[in-house]
Every structure is written in C-alpha cells, then in structure tokens.
C-alpha cells in the first residue's frame, strides 16, 4: 500500500427522465423497438433502473424483464432477461445485442407469445444526465473510506456501475483508483466481484467500505 499521488474525486450523476417516442404493446414490438431505440434508452432501462431501484435487494434487475413478467406474464423470458448482468458490458451495443438475442430466441420457440398484448405498454424512456461534484476528494485511504460513507448512493452507482461505459473497461472507478494509486490490486478485485443484484446499493457501499478497511489495516 502506498500514498496516492492523485486524489479520488467523488462525483455523482443526476438524471432527468425523458419520455421516448417508442412504445411496445407486444413482445414482437419490444423485439423490434429494442433494435432501433436510442442507446440511451437501453442505458435507461438497464443501468439506470438499477439506480432508481437501488433499495430493492432482489427481484428487480431491469425494466425489460420486469415488463415481461408484470405485463406479459412470461416468466421464462423475464428470468432470462433478468439474468443479464450489466457489468458484463463496456458498451451499450453489446448489451442491446444480448437483449435482442434473448427475446429473439424466445419468440422463435414461443411464436404465439409474440403477438399477445401486454396489459400495459412498455414506454421507452431515456435520461438527460448532469454530472456533479461532491464535497469529497480524498487523497488517503481513510479519507476515501470517509467519503465513501458520506456520498449518496447515486455517487456509488456513478463510480461503481456506470463507470464501465465511461472507462470501456471491465472495472470501476474505485478499483481503478485503489489499484493504480494505492497499490491494492486484491482489494480492487474483491470490489469488482461484489454482486449488485443480490444487494441494495447501500449494501454495496458497505461491502466496498469493509473491503477497503480490511485492506488498509
């Protein structure tokens, strides 16, 4: 462990929800819209929805899966879509292909499900994003832990989950800083392995803090 050369600047991102032009009333329409909707709609209904529902520990992973079960009563498809981990992707295009592929395969094996109307439409949305600073820019591990405990869960989401799309790396801002600035690669790896789908964002924060505290002792 060494003293960091660069501080960690805790930022946060705030999102304003925009209502898109597309909507789907059937699974076929969902399949079509998934292929043509803007990237920021895919981002909204996968990455962003995790942030919006950060307080739920289980049962909510992305809006597409939720709609397939709640409006279309298709649990198989919903489970398959819900199993997609956004952290496996460093670009939206790959995530889009995965989602389209899952729906495509399901419709090929269940063709009659494609035209059955859901009991409410799926409205494609997107977000306008504003990145904001926070008062925290620590240049030591104790300061980092302190900042981590005080920033909002949106800041945790910004650095831990959204960072992939910014970095285009299978990593996150926390792990990057810990490895590059403090020489703690094991802590960086341990943070990267935290399961975001079985924990609230508050739980993720506590796990990260525990890992860094342990590594710094």
């Amino acid at each position, binding site marked *: 462990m060494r003293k960091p050369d660069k501080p960690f600047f805790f930022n946060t991102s705030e*999102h*304003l929800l925009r209502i898109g032009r597309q909507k789907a009333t059937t699974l076929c329409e969902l399949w079509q819209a998934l292929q043509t909707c803007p990237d920021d709609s895919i981002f909204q209904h996968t990455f962003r929805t995790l942030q*919006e529902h950060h307080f739920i520990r289980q049962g909510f992973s992305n809006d597409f899966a939720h709609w397939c079960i709640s409006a279309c009563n298709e649990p198989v498809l919903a489970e398959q879509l819900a199993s997609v981990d956004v952290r496996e992707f460093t670009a939206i295009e790959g995530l889009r292909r995965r989602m389209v592929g899952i729906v495509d395969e399901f419709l090929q094996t269940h063709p009659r499900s494609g035209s059955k109307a859901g009991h409410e*439409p799926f409205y494609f949305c997107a977000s306008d994003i504003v990145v*904001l600073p*926070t008062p925290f820019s620590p240049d030591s591990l104790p300061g980092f832990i302190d900042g981590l405990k005080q920033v909002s869960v949106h800041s945790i989401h910004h650095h831990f989950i959204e960072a992939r799309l910014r970095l285009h790396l299978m990593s996150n801002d926390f792990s990057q800083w810990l490895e590059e600035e403090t020489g703690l690669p094991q802590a960086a790896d341990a943070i990267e392995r935290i399961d975001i789908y079985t924990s609230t964002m508050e739980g993720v924060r506590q796990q990260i803090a525990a890992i860094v505290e342990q590594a710094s002792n």
Partner: protein
Amino acid sequence: MKSQSQSEDQRATGTSATANSHTPAEAARNGAEIEPPEIDAPEPAPSEPSRGNGRPLPASVLTPPPPAPSPHLDDYRTIIGQAPLDALRFLARDLKGKSIKMVNSTAVGGGVAEMLNRLVPLLTELEVPTHWDVITGGNDFFEVTKAFHNALHGSSYELTKAAQEIFLMYNEQNRDRLQFGEEMVVIHDPQPVGLIRSRERTRASWVWRCHIDLSNPDAHVWEFLRPFVEQYDAAIFSSQSFARQLPIPQYLFYPCIDPLSEKNKELPDAVVQKICDEFGIDRSRPIVTQVSRFDRLKDPVGVVHAYKLAKKYVDCQLVLAGGGASDDPEGAAVLQEVKRAAGDDRDIIILDLPPWCALEINAIQRASTIVVQKSLKEGFGLTVTEALWKGKPTIAGAVGGIPNQIIHKLTGVLVHSVEGCAYQIRYLLTHPDFAKRIGTSGREHVKENFLMTTNVKRWLLLFRILERAKSRRGTGRSQ
C-alpha cells in the same frame, strides 16, 4: 396530484385571482382572492361534518387549523440526508442569477397551487429566484377551460368557434399584462398555453407542464391546443402514459408529496393515539384503511366487500376516511351506498371529514396496519404516495399512475378485483415480515422519486439542461 377539476369549479363561479408574487400569501397581500387550501382527498367543507356511520366528529376537527410556516431546505436534512441537499446546492450553483417564472391559473386550491406554494420558496432559497404569476379571466374563460379540461380527459365536447375565441382572447389579454424577463418560463396546464406567443419576445426557454392525463383526449380540443404546445422547448408529464407524440422533448416529473406537510410529517404516537381515540379506532386490532373521496371511481363499496371477504379469515377493522359527501350530490349518494354495504358492522368506521383534516388523515394512515387504494380509475394517486411514505404495506388498483409507485410485491401489491384485494388483505395481515419488507421498500421508493426535494432537483436539472441547449444553439431569440 389532485385533479384540476375542483379548482376549475371554483374559478368558474367567479373572476380569477392574480398573484404576481412568490407565494399565495404574497398574492393575498397583492389583492388576490384567497380561498382555504385543499387537501388531496376531501372536498370543500361540509356544513356539519359527521362521522359517516352516524356519530358526530370530534370538535377538534370542526374548524381549520392555522397554516403551517413553509419549511426551509435544511429542514429536510433529517429526512433525505446531507448528500442530496449538497447535490441540490451544486445543481443550483451554476444557475445563480438566473430566474424562473411559473404561470398557472389559480393562486390557491388544487394540487398545482399547493405544489407551487412549496416549490417556489425552495427554489428561491437556492438562489434561483422563482416568480409565480396567475392568469386572469372571466367566468366565460374558465367555463371554456373547464370544458377543455374534461374534454382532454376524454369527455366528448363540441369545440365551437366562440369557445376558441374566448380562449384566445383571454390568453392575449394575459400576454399583454405579463412580463417574461426570466430565463425559464413554465406554463402549467392548458389554460395559459397560449402565452407561448410571447416566446419570440423573450430570451427564455419555455416549458409546458401538463398535470393532466392526455392519453385519450377529445381530438378537436387537442388539435386546437397542439400547435401551441409544439412551440415550447419542452413538455413535462406526470406519467409516461399521460403523454402525446410531440416534436419537442418530453420529460417525466412525477407528482410529489411534502414530507414536512401536516399530511405527511412525523407524528408523536400520543397524537396518533389521541386522534384514533376520538374517531373510535381501536389500535390494539388490525386496521385496514382507505383514504379517498366518496367517489365511485375510488370503489369504496368494493373495499367494504373486500374487507368482509377477508374478515371471514382474519380479524380487522376497516376505516374509510374521505370527504365530498356533504357538498356533492354524487358523493352523498356514494356515502349512502357505502353505509348500506357496511350494514351494522361496528368495525367499519366511515369518516366524512372536512378538507382541513390533513393531520387527522396523517394519524389514521400512521395507525393503519394496511392501506388500500382500490381505485378503478386514478390520476397519479397521491394517497398511495402518502401511505408508502409512512411505510405502510399498500394494496392498490393497477390503474393510472399507481403502477409507477407500486412495483408488485416489491413496494406494495397491485390488485384488479375485490377478490384479489380481499386475498391480499388476508395475506398481508398474516405475513407481517413480508408486509414490513414491502412497506420499507415503498418508503424508500417515495424517498427516491416522489418527495418535494426530488421535484426541486428535477426543476434544477431541467433548467440546467435547457440552459446548456440554449448556449449550444446561441442565445437565439433576443428581446
């Protein structure tokens, strides 16, 4: 957000007020006509409020309490934490010196005025001066806009040339009267939508905030209004499903509740107990509550049937707390239907409350074991928001904006029938751990999405986004 129809009713009976001021209190000093504020569920005051099943209401609720002072931003710290307040201040920092104008059609009464009454001081406290103007018009104008309102909700309406001329004439009069020196102008609802014709004379970004459901409008009225809406820089709706296809960006702003209002603030248990005692509610046994007007669309009779089905298996009381039966013939008829359905069951407590009983509603919601909102049709459903905020396991009809609030089995339970409602009452009363879990998640959902502070954040975000867009395209218009 409360339906606009009541405030339309009020305006239709007299000339509108003007409030070129920050708040309605200032509006009053400026000579505006001020009426008692409404709460979301009940309607204007009945002359002799009474407990629906016969006993008189306690004396403490017979007169309205004095208005509570507006909270300051720091008052919210204990509720939302420091970090979200920091975010609001960072968001506002880049907007310092820039100002907002809000324009609507009533200074008091109705959900929009209630919301602006809290929003405007908070934005101003963040050093984003926000001015609130109210358009003026005669009875003829407000009769037309009331008809437009109903038509936009789907009622059939014959749009005459005369109605169009009245609408346009008053919008032109208000255009001549109002100044638009701010950087963002927000026009609320259809009544003042024609003010957009002043856009070219200003440097402002213009936003149309539509609080009503446009999913199924009368085609003629919408085609008349649409050319105005399309001239705005952005439109805002309260739900994805309320929006229309438009060539301008459309944003989603959920309606919100104020956690520091009489209706939603924390209450000492002694206060809750006292109010329950006054109404004859037994806190030692499970309490199932629906808070709503006596309106068929809220299905209070269905709630009584659901309660009776559930009561075969579990002990509970049912509280139906609302208003609207004393001044509204249909409300009175619905109240009679509810009483008939209740029969002589002493565990059904029907309360026809005056409109100022926000504190009592708060206490009843807090005392409840389960809250039900079994609406058949709904706007956003702020009574659901209130229940979720109090951490109550909530059962609600899957209509209007309710599915935005209740994620089935995660933040509450959605139902589609009396039988479904009855089953969920039984289930929640016999599975307290699950009930507690969804109640906790429901409160977090409200904290994240449906509080006044989130509403402030959305306005600041929108302002920044529009300012950024304006600077990208050059200042464009000039005065």
